[in-house]
């Protein structure tokens, strides 16, 4: 795999809203749903929920520590909406262009 930090934004986009397993330095492994990848630092924002209706845990793996990213499960439109809602402040709304 090409080094994670060298990927282009469109390639990072392919991982968004999917469930992935991230292998990081020092043999750490993390899984979760990808909310976004910071195009500056290549950090991956992962969201996990312990049980339905429970609080969401956000984990950010810093880009320089990422060794490998493996897709475990494809996302759906429902997943995309859920992830968007997690980070949208109450009362916020999307304005059309």
């Amino acid at each position, binding site marked *: 795999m090409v080094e994670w930090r060298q990927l282009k934004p469109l390639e990072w986009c392919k991982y968004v809203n999917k469930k992935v397993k991230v292998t990081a330095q020092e043999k750490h492994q993390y899984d979760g749903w990808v*909310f976004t*990848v*910071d195009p500056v630092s290549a*950090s991956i924002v992962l969201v996990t929920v312990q049980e339905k209706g429970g609080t969401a*845990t*956000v984990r950010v793996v810093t880009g320089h*520590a990422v060794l490998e990213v493996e897709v475990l499960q494809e996302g759906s439109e429902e997943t995309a909406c859920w992830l968007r809602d997690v980070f949208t402040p109450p009362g916020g709304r999307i304005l059309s262009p």
Partner: protein
Amino acid sequence: SPRFLALCPTSISSSTGSGSDPVQMGEEQCARSALREGFLRALVAMTNKPVQFDMYERVKVHATFGSSDIDVLNFQVSDLHTPIGVQKEALLRCQDVILYSFDL
């Protein structure tokens, strides 16, 4: 910024060059801005929350997240709980961090 280029020279990648397709460049820029917006929203959600930082050598520290600089090179945190005591205010170098996590 020059500081970012000096410290992390290769982390911003883009399809540059005279042969680049302008349509593809536009798509790439759209993708970059959408990804960055999401990341900034995540940072906003993290502000003033207790955050755990997993660093190298299996060191784990807790702190209240304050802010990050634009290049994501340093984090400003408060009440940093370290093995040798609590530091009221601190800057963490992001290059020393593998993972940071918090609950929403």
